[in-house]
Every structure is written in C-alpha cells, then in structure tokens.
C-alpha cells in the first residue's frame, strides 16, 4: 500500500469511530424536526392551534378555512423546507468532500445560480411550462454549474487553492446572476423572477412537494450509497487511487447527485445559500470525518435548520414575509468569515 502523508486522520481511525453519536443526532433530529414542523404549521398570520392541526390532518373538513390553510398552505410549506434543507446540506457536504474544500457550498460555487439562470430563460420564453417540467431545465442549469466548477478544478489541477476555487465560483455566480437580471429585464419578467433573487418557500404547495420529493430522495439515497467512497476520496486523490478506487467515476456520480439535489430544490426555493456550508461543518465537528456519518446527519440537521429559519421568515416581520435567503445569509456569513479566517494554512 502506498503511504501518503495527509493532514487528516488515519482511515482506520476514522472508520473505527462509533456511530453512536450519529444515532443520537438522528434521533434528536427527528424529534426537533417533528417539533419544528408542528411549530411551523401553527405559526403564521392566521391563529391556528395544535388541536386544529390534528383535526385538519385526520378529520379534514373542506369547509373550514383553518383546515384549508393547514392542509393546503402550511403543511406543504413546512415539508418543502425540510426537503430543500436536507438537499442543500447534503449537496454542500458532497462538494466539500469531492473538491476537498472546506468552503464549498453549492450557493457559493455558483451551482444554484446556474440553475436560476436556465430557469429565468425558460420562464421568460416559455411561460406556460408546468412546475414539473421546470425541474428538468433546472437540472440542466445545475449541471452546467457543476460542469463549470469541475472543469475549472480539472483545468488547473493543484494550482487552484480552496480560496481561489471559491473566488472563481463566486465570479461565475455573479456572471450568471447578471445574465439572469438582463434576461428578466429584457423580457419584462422581473416580477416572476423576484422569487429567485430573494429566495423563499412562502409559495410552496403540494405540487412542489410531490415534484421535488422523488428527486431529493433519490439524491439522498445516492449520497448515502456513495458516502464510503467519499470518505476515501476526501483523504486525497492519491490515497483513493492507491486504495483501488476509480476517483473519476466517484466524482462523476457525486456530480450527478449534486445536480439532482440542487436542480430539484432551486425551482421550489430560489437562491438560498450557505445551508450547504454551515451544516456539514457542524456535523463534522460532532461526528468526525467519516462521510457515512456526515451525509445522514447533514440531511437531518439541514432539514431542521431550514424549517426553523422559515418559521423565522414568517414571524420576524409579521404579517410580511422575510426572504429566507436573507435569513440564511445573516446566519451563514459570520460562519463563513470564521472559516475563511481560521483555516488559513490549507486554504491559501
């Protein structure tokens, strides 16, 4: 076996870590998530008690307005939050593993913006398309974003330090957002695309839940299956090759998984960043470097944080909505700054 010096821990040591913490996180996460979903359903402009929610779920009466609100507005909104939270968090964790970059986040790398750009083009020129078919175009855009980042990382192997990769991603994102803005101004669709710039799930309905959940669940399962390989890949390309892994096929499948997760989420929520940056870091702090533990825990915590952030989006400025993207940015930026300042040595 080839011995390669790495700055991370020994593979055996990582694998040997007890998955007990993961179980605690997952169990605690389920409780928090259920609590968050319940809180999300009862909070909002209309006063609705928990017992009404219970009634609405199990003895639905279409004539009661409160039941309609619970079932048709609040529930799908809360569930969409959980889905996109899990999705962005796992996509971020995967990008961090594949690019070996602690700052990688699909928002910061311009992947979300790629999806948004293609959505803007489609909404501007084919406004009659259904939400279901929008998703496919979103995949195309997210795929474009992933391909650009992979291409950049490949074009200058080794020379692209983590900071520079993020910088390149941010500039690609700027470019794509600029194009989105030009297209929406030229075609007069600024209003339709306002959701994209702000980011939020206030308009989520059951259509969104039904359309995105198969893709998000497929993506999550694929990520869990890939997770042992990601652990090895995160130790470094040479180590992974030395251990008999096909690094390029792992990267390719990871890229497709990220594309599925991001592509499905962006049409529902728009431009929300930083979830994929914050969550994997908290998780890594709790369970260590093993992606078999990181991926499921990221999914759980991502779902929890977005459900709670969305409750904030409802309550901060009642009766108006606060953009979810802004809330995540306010939480995420200090975190990013801390990381960018702390991890100086391997970053530069």
């Amino acid at each position, binding site marked *: 076996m080839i011995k390669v010096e790495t700055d991370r821990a020994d593979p055996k040591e990582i694998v040997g870590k007890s998955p007990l913490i993961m179980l605690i996180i997952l169990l605690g996460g389920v409780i928090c998530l259920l609590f968050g979903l319940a809180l999300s359903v009862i909070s909002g402009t209309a006063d609705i008690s928990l017992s009404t929610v219970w009634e609405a779920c199990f003895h639905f009466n279409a004539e009661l307005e409160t039941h309609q609100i619970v079932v048709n507005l609040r529930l799908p909104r809360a569930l969409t939050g959980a889905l996109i939270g899990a999705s962005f968090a796992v996509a971020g964790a995967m990008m961090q593993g594949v690019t070996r970059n602690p700052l990688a986040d699909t928002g910061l790398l311009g992947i979300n913006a790629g999806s948004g750009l293609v959505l803007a083009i489609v909404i501007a020129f084919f406004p009659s398309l259904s939400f279901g078919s929008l998703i496919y175009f979103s995949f195309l855009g997210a795929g474009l974003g992933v391909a650009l980042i992979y291409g*950049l990382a490949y074009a*200058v192997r080794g020379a692209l330090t983590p900071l*520079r990769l993020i910088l390149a991603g941010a500039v690609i994102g700027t470019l794509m957002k600029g194009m989105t803005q030009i297209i929406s101004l030229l075609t007069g669709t600024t209003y339709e695309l306002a959701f994209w710039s702000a980011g939020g799930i206030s308009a989520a309905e059951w259509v969104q839940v039904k359309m995105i959940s198969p893709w998000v669940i497929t993506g999550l399962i694929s990520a869990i299956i890939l997770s042992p390989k990601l652990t090895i890949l995160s130790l470094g390309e040479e180590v992974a090759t030395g251990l008999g892994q096909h690094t390029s096929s792992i990267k390719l499948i990871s890229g497709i998984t990220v594309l599925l997760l991001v592509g499905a989420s962006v049409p529902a929520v728009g431009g929300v960043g930083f979830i994929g940056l914050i969550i994997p870091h908290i998780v890594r702090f709790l369970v260590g470097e093993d992606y078999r533990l990181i991926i499921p825990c990221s999914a759980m915590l991502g779902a929890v944080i977005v459900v709670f952030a969305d409750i904030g989006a409802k309550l901060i400025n009642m009766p108006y909505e606060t953009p979810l993207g802004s809330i995540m940015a*306010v939480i995420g930026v200090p975190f990013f700054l801390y990381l960018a300042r702390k991890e100086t040595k391997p970053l530069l």
Partner: protein
Amino acid sequence: MIEHTFAEIHNVRQKRTFKIVVMLSLILAVIFLISLNTGTMRLTPEQVWAVLTGEGSQKQQTVLFRLRLPRMIIAILVGAGLAVSGAVLQGISKNALADPGILGINSGANLVVLLIVITAPASIFANPFLLPAGALLGSCCTAAIIFAMSYKKGRGLHPSRMLLIGIAVAAALSAISAILTLKLNPMEYDMVYEFSLGSLYGGDWDFVLSLLPWILGVLPFVIYKSHILNILHLNESAGVSLGYSVEKERFYLLLAALALAASSSAIGGGIGFVGLMGPHMARKLVGPKHQFMLPAAALLGAILVIAGDTVARSILKNTELPAGVVISMLGAPYFLYLLLKSR
C-alpha cells in the same frame, strides 16, 4: 553605459505612453459623443453643438444639461476612480486580482441610505447632499470592516482572502438591506431602489459635485506617489533599503485606494471588475511603471464605465439596466482568465 540605456528605455516608454494616452482620450471622446446620442431622446453632434452655443430647443437643453451630461461625467469619474483604486490595491498587495468593485464596498452604502430613509423625517431630504454623504459613510465603514477582518497580525493582508471576505460581508449587508426594505412604503422603496442602482441614473450635478473633490484630491496624490508604488510592487525590502518607511507609505496608499473606491461606489453603485480590467490592460499597453500606467488605467476605466452605461441604455429603453451588470459580462470572464493564468 547601462544608465544611458535605462534613460533611453525610459524615453521610449514616455513617448509611447504619451501616444497611447492621446489615443485613449480620443476613444473616450468618441464614446462620449456616441453616448450623448444614445437613449430615449437622441441628440446628434450638431444638435449638441447647437445647444452648447445656445441655439437648441428648451427640451434639448434639458436633456443635455440635466440628464445626459451629469450622468456621463459621473460615469467617467467613477471609472477613473475605480481603475486607479484597483491599480493601487494591486500594487501594494502584489496581487493582480485585487479589485475594489468585487469587494462589494457599495453594499454598506445601500444599507446606510436605507437606514436614513427609514429613520429620518421627510423634511430632511430637501438637502441634496444627505444621501450621497450617507452612502459615502456606508462605503467607508464597509471598507474599514473588510480591511480589519482580512488583516492578520504577522501575516498581513492576503488579497484572495480579502476578496472572499468582501464578497461575504457584501452578502450579509445586502441580506440585512433586503430585510429592512420590507419596512418601506412604496414611495420610499422607489427612492432607495433608484439610489441602489447607482446614481448613474438619477445622476444630477449634486452628485457630480459630491464626487469631484474626492477624485481630484486623491488621484494626483496617487500619481505623485507612483515611484513608491513601483518599489512596493517590486519588492518591499528594496523599499526599506532605499530609505522609505514601507509600512507607513503602504498605509497611506491603501487609505487613498479605499477613499477612491468608497466615493466612486457610493455615487456610481456596485460596478465590479473595472478596477481589475483597467490597470491590467494599461499594464499591457504601457508597461508596469505606475507613472505611465496610472493615467492609462484611469482613461481605460472611464472608457469601460461610460461604454457599459451606453450599452445598458441602448438595449433597454424604458427600464434601467445597471451599467455594472453589463460590465460584469465582460469582466467576469476576464477575471476567470486572470485567476487561471496567475498560478
């Protein structure tokens, strides 16, 4: 003998710089004329001449003096300011990627303008200098925050980190602005939105007057210091051995760069990549010596912003497309090219 050759090279460069500066000025003049002729109301050069000699119609006079001229003068000042600011930042950090626009200094300007509009009573807006002054304060604070956060004791400033921190700080400030925007009534919203686009739009002579002293004050200072920039760009220890107090000079130059960036982006809005492209193209044209490069960079910056604004105005007649967005279509690929090239 060798000294003689150096002097000759210097002379050749000087002549070449002179030619290029003249050429760039001509290009700027041509774009200026095209720009005068672009927009909802067109003004041909003859009409402009007629207005200048006092023979134009009332409407033509209004368009020229109240709408076009201030906007174009602001574009030129902002472009020159950003380009020179970028050149100084690149010189003192020895990094070709430093750009004041990408730092997002104007995000703080928006926030302060928003706070003023929310908290101040309506009567205060009679003062035309209030919003530009607020924007300037916001830009300066943002610049100070970014600088303080990217400075590490013993390690100094790392330019890539500084850019990333700038992007992040801008993200946070615009998020706060987005939240505050919800508290505005429609009239206040229009006011803030117009200002946030950059005052190339509402641009009138008050804005020109609040920007002019900064540019006229700081630009000569930077050009005066160009021999120090040359030394800093080359090698710090050379500066020490030549008897300069490197840290002090660098601090003054940084202050000058931030003052230019803050005043330009407070008035011009978020225009990225000009501070990157201007100096870089100038270096290609006249070489790296700052006394030659700075004037060329200032002209190139002015050309970029006024051309970007003209293009923005000609593709969209009724809605305002920010000039910064047009420029970023060219600037972002340029940035990526530089990023990939500079290993």
